[in-house]
């Protein structure tokens, strides 16, 4: 697919129009000009044993439904945070404590597709409190608490089909924003798909996010039936606004590949959310019936619960004039990004040959002067030349996303020509370009969506790797590539593989997070309904067919470790509390033939529940799955199962351990 001719073009920096011939090329040939000397790159990304990385990078897991946490600049994978997919590794989404986080109006959903992590902000800067991420398939948002790297809250978004333009945070984490990628009948109803233009609508959602446990759909703006792709809130002067790309303004409902690529211009929707707040406050929103789940994990109970909500505030643009405008933007724009000053709104036309840059101040003047070319369903369309600040020429083909540095320059990912293009706001001219291997989607500069990015690295997230890593059958890893951007020219330093498919990613100075990590949960504060805070509180009880076992785990035994009185037909609930109160001493728990649940991984001070439904009489072992101590292999027990109807007295015991009298833990 790549050719020597192609690389000569890139190396010589000649006319990009020539690249059109390579429209569907997977990537450029390797060029040596962008590689640093073999002596420099290793030292820039080498994090010596015992030392730590400078940044945490949070990369969406894409179709894995999770978030991958990496250290930068080493590219080392530190953790996978389970969010929207069940994770058998630690029981997330299987055990009673975490399953409610996956609740929706459709029931429990075991999988989703995460795209865009967004770090919480205060005054336009990352503050290290939380990271949010979207579920694209069954529209939801999640909050991950960065003191523990665990999902603590999820909320479903009604009236939405594909929560793609989400969940970018506003300047003070007032809201996370969302937009429907697929317009759908709102409210849902059974209509002909061909009635798209008449029946299908879009929504833009603002979800209250500044208080943990209280995420709430503040309001939804009902939009024309287009596809809404990505969004970014304003910052600084444009704080109070948010910008969303749209495509398929053709309103095609079949063969979108062709039918939604006809218009020369689609729109960026500029939404004034402060105006929407005012309209809602003055009673201009309507409470539409809806059905959606809000799920919240209680830190002390170690248990998530679900609340179903039945109504959502909806605002029609015609009921709130001045709340939304359309900015014409070339060719099915994908990304929309706001620069650190808050003045420039940069679109990324998937099929465009320029990068359009809108000006916020020009937009405000145009609104003042009513420089509109028409309106669409009551939404004014501002004249392109009245809002455009400049067009970056020759950016390569298929510009998608932009991140920014601290020197007034932008880095645009360009998918079709597989490169990163650097250009600056002072003259909208391309100053550098480097190939990516291959087919870059999003890109990331640490702090790149804040008012003060760290102009140190840019990381490309690539969709295709082909020959870059050892081959692993038909499915290959996707990858990230780290480039140095501290100088005039970008320099490739490192390739590293990623989990799932990283779409967007964000990185934060490690100093903002690392020292506030929870090391263990305080046992004294554990209010789980089945907690056993010491071995003397353990026990077994029957409630109909359910047998509850309150169990404890501490190096290197379970209490109890012998359980009798269970019959076939019973459901056994092992409520295991980890009594340890020290850092890095999780215990695991698994029971043979556990067909309905995964294992448990129980953090110190935490309680987790394994549901175990025995099928056959016999005696079955259970054991600790996380190598906890020298006597880990001894950390085991048995549960005896009698045939159905044969009553054996419920009893439990643990061999006496005089070294640790029960009750003194």
């Amino acid at each position, binding site marked *: 697919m790549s050719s020597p001719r192609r690389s000569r073009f890139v190396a010589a920096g000649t006319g990009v129009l020539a690249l059109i011939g390579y429209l569907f090329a997977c990537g450029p040939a390797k060029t040596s000009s962008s590689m640093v000397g073999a002596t420099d790159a290793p030292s820039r990304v080498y994090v010596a044993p015992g030392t730590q990385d400078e940044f945490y990078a949070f990369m969406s897991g894409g179709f894995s439904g999770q978030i991958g946490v990496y250290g930068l600049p080493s590219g080392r994978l530190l953790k996978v945070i389970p969010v929207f997919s069940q994770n058998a590794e630690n029981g997330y989404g299987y055990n009673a404590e975490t399953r409610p986080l996956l609740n929706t109006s459709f029931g429990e959903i075991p999988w989703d597709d995460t795209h865009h992590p967004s770090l919480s902000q205060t005054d336009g800067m990352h503050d290290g409190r939380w990271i949010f991420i979207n579920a694209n398939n069954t529209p939801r948002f999640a909050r991950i608490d960065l003191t523990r790297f665990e999902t603590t809250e999820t909320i479903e978004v009604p009236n939405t089909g594909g929560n793609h333009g989400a969940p970018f945070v506003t300047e003070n984490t007032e809201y996370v924003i969302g937009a429907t990628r697929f317009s759908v009948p709102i409210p849902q109803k059974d209509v002909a798909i061909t009635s798209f233009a008449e029946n299908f609508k879009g929504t833009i959602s603002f979800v209250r996010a500044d208080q943990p446990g209280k995420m709430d759909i503040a309001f939804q703006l009902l939009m024309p039936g287009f596809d809404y792709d990505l969004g970014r809130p304003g910052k600084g002067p444009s704080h109070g606004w948010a910008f969303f790309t749209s495509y398929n303004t053709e309103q095609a409902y079949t063969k979108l590949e062709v039918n939604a690529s006809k218009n020369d211009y689609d729109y960026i929707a500029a939404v004034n959310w402060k105006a929407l707040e005012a309209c809602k406050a003055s009673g201009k929103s309507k409470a539409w019936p809806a059905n959606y789940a809000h799920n919240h994990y209680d830190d002390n109970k170690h248990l998530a619960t679900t609340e179903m909500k039945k109504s959502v505030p909806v605002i029609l643009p015609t009921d709130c004039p001045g709340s939304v405008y359309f900015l014409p933007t070339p060719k099915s724009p994908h990304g929309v990004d706001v620069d650190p000053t808050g003045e420039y709104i940069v679109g990324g036309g998937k099929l465009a040959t320029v990068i359009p840059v809108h000006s916020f101040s020009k937009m405000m003047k145009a609104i003042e002067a009513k420089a509109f070319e028409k309106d669409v369903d009551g939404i004014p369309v501002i004249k392109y030349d009245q809002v455009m600040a400049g067009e970056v020429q020759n950016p390569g083909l298929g510009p998608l996303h932009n991140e920014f540095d601290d020197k007034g320059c932008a880095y645009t990912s360009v998918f079709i020509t597989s490169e990163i293009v650097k250009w600056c706001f002072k003259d909208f001219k391309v100053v550098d370009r480097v190939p990516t291997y291959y087919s870059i989607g999003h890109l990331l500069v640490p702090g790149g969506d804040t008012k003060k990015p760290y102009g140190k690295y840019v990381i490309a997230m690539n969709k295709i790797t082909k020959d870059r890593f050892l081959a692993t059958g038909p499915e290959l890893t996707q990858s990230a590539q780290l480039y140095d951007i501290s100088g005039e020219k970008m320099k490739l330093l490192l390739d590293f593989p990623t989990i799932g498919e990283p779409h967007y990613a964000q990185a934060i100075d490690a100093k903002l997070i690392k020292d506030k990590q929870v090391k263990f949960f305080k046992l004294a504060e554990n209010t789980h309904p089945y907690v056993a805070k010491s071995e003397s509180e353990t026990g077994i009880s029957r409630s109909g067919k359910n047998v509850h076992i309150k169990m404890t785990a*501490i190096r290197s035994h379970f209490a109890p470790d012998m359980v009798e009185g269970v019959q076939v037909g019973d459901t056994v609930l092992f409520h295991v509390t980890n009594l*340890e109160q020290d850092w890095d001493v999780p215990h695991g728990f698994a029971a043979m033939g556990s067909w309905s649940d995964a294992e448990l991984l129980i953090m110190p001070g935490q309680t987790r529940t394994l549901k175990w439904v025995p099928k056959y009489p016999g005696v079955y072992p259970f054991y600790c799955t996380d190598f906890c101590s020298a006597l880990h292999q001894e950390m085991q027990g048995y549960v005896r199962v009698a045939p159905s109807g044969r009553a054996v007295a419920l009893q439990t015991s643990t061999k006496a351990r005089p070294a640790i*009298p029960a009750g003194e833990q």
Partner: protein
Amino acid sequence: MLSFRARLALVASAALLGLMYVLPVWRVTLAAPQYPEGLGMQIWLNTITGIKPNDLDNINNLNHYIGMKRIVPESIPELRWMPVIVGVLAGLAAAAALTRNRKLATLFVVALVGLAVIGLVDFYRWEYDYGHNLDLENAIIKIPGMSYQPPLIGSKQLLNFTASSWPAAGGFAAFGALVLGILALWIDRAPGARTGHRVRVPLSAAAA
């Protein structure tokens, strides 16, 4: 009759003893590669605590592998007596300063030295007991001939841990109190023992 300076030294000595109520007296730390954040306990006049909130429980949990008794502060009677003993000692120093009674001052210093020695011997006995009287029936790790007595003072390798035992701030305060007590006696040593130094007398008179 004690001079002003000697009395000042005794008051300071009593004050240092007072500090022992708010500062840990002794510190035993356990160092091993798996504990980069450290692990240890502090002995106070009236209790034993972990250096970090859960250290004592974690040490007890580790000790169960070798069959060592749990360290339970409530079961150590010395922790009930020590606040009283130190109070009496501080009272002696204060009384000596107040009454200018040299004999009382001497009694204070002798008692302090005596009780410090007894205290260290007692500490050694407890360490010996914890280190040797192991529950071998239920011990998980049994190494013939191995005992786990931590050092009285200094460092010692115990299996994978380097156990270190050193006075803590309160212990140094006690040592300072002793030095000040001896200094008080030395300042007002018998006049025949030295010659040609009379400066203290007017000061003493001025204080009176």
